[in-house]
């Protein structure tokens, strides 16, 4: 798409509506409603039905993992740090020696993007940008990736959550400010921090099972009487929310990994990150469209190498186990696993043997659903200081994620009369990593 596309964002569509005058304003309001509950009554398109079993797991490497100690090593360069690189199962592609498991399986599911230049090296701004695919602009509360995928891949009346985010460490927890923004709180995440279970899904002891159900029936009956003649989306959403309660309460068991075989649990390992990845797999298996598992905190200003000696092998193990498990269950065809952070880390090594924030040339990976396994896109220069080839920003990465999941990145939401496409106009996906 060219600049002409840009004008569509703010322009022609609305112009036309404006020409139609006041009568069209009602139509605009109705279009605005598609983000709401009205979707329930609309017949789904065939492509949307196919899309309904697509899922996404985001491994969020909070604090900023180093691309040099993961996907884009520069051994032997002044900026390279002490780690060596190792060959992978894809001829000619080498990654950090800290990731032997992913190296052995790289050809199976994974594409590496080495050319992100996202321009925001601040934890808060970078997190917002990389969770939304665009910065704060236009005075609009943009939805984050999870909310958009929950909206695109979820079912309005789903019995499981749409969007679950794990973030157990406390550092940086609020930087990405997860939110459904203008999509509405229907698509807000369930954020899990201390407990690895949904909040408020357990019936209180003070009420019996039967009473819990029957008082809900009474509530529903009373509310249905109220809703008669008040056919507006906010009122319907209230009742849909309560209709989901019993399903969500039942989905509590999804968070209980004790029902998994010991072999499976061993595969993921005893770490918190591993256990959360296993829960993520259980959730997508049950139909949750989007799960974020955040692993904080990679912000290695001091002792970068020793920090990555702890965190990178853990990532290597957990990511490999997750992909392997999803593949074994035949789920990886429909599940996209993304590794991403707010930014990468400086090639320059500081006096504390640390690396600092760096958004100019860093990496992300996509695995599974819709991805051309073993592909590598983009290149940084010899010292990793700049993108030498295939530079992309957050928008292109998001377009690629949407495309991999079978979602048209040019699709538009409507905020009032303003059409807002999933990614900013003019942005195209990276076809090279798509199957």
């Amino acid at each position, binding site marked *: 798409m060219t600049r002409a596309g840009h004008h569509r964002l703010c322009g022609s569509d609305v112009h036309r509506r404006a020409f139609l005058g006041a009568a069209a304003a009602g139509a605009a309001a109705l279009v605005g409603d598609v983000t709401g509950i009205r979707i329930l009554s609309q017949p789904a398109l065939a492509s949307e039905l196919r899309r309904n079993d697509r899922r996404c797991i985001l491994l969020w490497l909070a604090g900023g993992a180093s691309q040099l100690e993961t996907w884009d090593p520069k051994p032997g360069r002044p900026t390279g740090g*002490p780690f060596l690189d190792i060959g992978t199962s894809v001829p000619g592609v080498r990654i950090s020696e800290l990731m032997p498991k992913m190296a052995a399986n790289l050809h199976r599911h994974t594409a590496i993007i080495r050319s992100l230049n996202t321009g925001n090296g601040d934890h808060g701004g970078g997190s917002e940008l990389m969770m939304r695919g665009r910065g704060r602009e236009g005075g609009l509360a943009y939805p984050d990736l999870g909310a958009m995928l929950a909206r695109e891949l979820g079912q309005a009346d789903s019995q499981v959550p749409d969007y679950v985010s794990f973030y157990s460490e406390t550092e940086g927890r609020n930087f990405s400010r997860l939110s459904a923004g203008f999509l509405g709180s229907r698509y807000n995440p369930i954020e899990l921090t201390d407990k690895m279970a949904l909040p408020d899904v357990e019936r209180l002891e003070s009420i019996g099972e039967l009473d819990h159900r029957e008082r809900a029936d009474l509530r529903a009956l009373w509310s249905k009487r109220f809703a008669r003649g008040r056919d507006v989306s906010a009122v319907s959403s209230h009742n849909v929310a309560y209709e989901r309660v019993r399903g969500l309460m039942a989905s509590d068991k999804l968070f209980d990994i004790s029902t998994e075989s010991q072999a499976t649990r061993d595969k993921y390992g005893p770490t918190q990150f591993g256990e959360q990845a296993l829960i993520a797999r259980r959730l997508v298996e049950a139909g949750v469209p989007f799960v974020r598992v955040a692993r904080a905190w990679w912000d290695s200003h001091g002792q970068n190498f020793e920090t990555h*000696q702890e965190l990178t092998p853990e990532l290597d193990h957990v990511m490999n186990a997750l992909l392997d498990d999803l593949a074994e269950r035949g789920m990886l065809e429909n599940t996209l696993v993304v590794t991403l952070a707010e930014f990468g880390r400086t090639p320059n090594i500081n006096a504390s043997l640390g690396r600092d924030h760096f958004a100019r040339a860093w990496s992300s990976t996509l695995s599974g659903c819709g991805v051309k396994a073993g592909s590598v896109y983009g290149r940084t220069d010899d010292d990793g200081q700049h993108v030498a080839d295939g530079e992309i920003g957050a928008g292109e990465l998001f377009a690629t994620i949407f495309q991999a999941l079978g979602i048209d990145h040019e699709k538009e939401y409507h905020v009032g009369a303003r059409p807002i496409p999933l990614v900013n106009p003019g942005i195209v996906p990276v076809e090279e990593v798509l199957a």
Partner: protein
Amino acid sequence: MAIPTNIKHVRTINRPGITLCIAREGESERVFTGSSDAKVYALDMAQEKPEAVAYEGHASYVTGVAVAGKHIVSGGYDRKLIWRETDGGKLVRTVDAHEKWIRAVVASPDGSLIASVADDMVCKLWNAESGDLIRELRGHEQLTPHHFPSMLFTCAFSRDGKYLATADKPGHVVVWDVASGEQAAAFDSPEHYTWDPRQRRHSIGGVRSLAFSPDGERLAVGGIAKIGNVDHLDGKALVHSFDWRKAERTFALEHPRHKGLVNELRYTADGEGLLAAGGSGGGFFFWLDAKENKPLGDEDAKMHVHGVACGEGFAKVYAAGHNGVAVWEMTA
């Protein structure tokens, strides 16, 4: 003998990359350094502008260098030990010494042995002349208490060469009987290790330096005190001293002014004074009264000091650091 607490910077030879370790040939002004560019350099510090003669052979950071008799032995993150002749630098042998990063290489006081420690958590003793492996010393856990790979950072011989101490990231210290290979003592100094279980969920720190007192009775243990924010080396420089035979801690000192890792410890010949060097973003030298457990003179080192080399006295102290090699003068 008074403690040489007057610390004076003489000069700094700027070097590219990070100079990680340094050894001095006897009492001469010839030093050997190991660098992040995978090279060993020989520098004659007597010259006004010392030429750095490069010896290639390693494939990653060179983190340990020792002079033993006619040999320089270097070790690095490439897991190799390389022997060269001090004179001319001729390559003698390359040994695949460890399974993981080599963190330190030291020579016994009489120059007959080389000890190397690595993240495979093994200390290996080598015949300095023949390069034969004499003994493997195994007494450190592979994993930290939090299930991450551990690191074996440092080792030091007693002055009489009978004992060798090794110490790891979670703060486990072992003193070995060199002749028998048996553990003479083992104890923990966990204050050097910070595990952040909640905020950031990774660790930082570890014991980075060891030194026996000249009488061999005490063992000084250097590192960094507990850190609030494990993203940074933001803890006070920490020195502990042990009566190692009893595994009893005799003192603990968090330096009131300096922050960062204590990477090197050196006793004065009479055992009265203890020099600590290290750093974080910047660096430091400080002296301790080794008996009274109190800080004496100190100085900003202008660079994170990764290693020091000095002779019997402290008239010339050579420091390897983040931006090169520096010469310091320490007098009473």
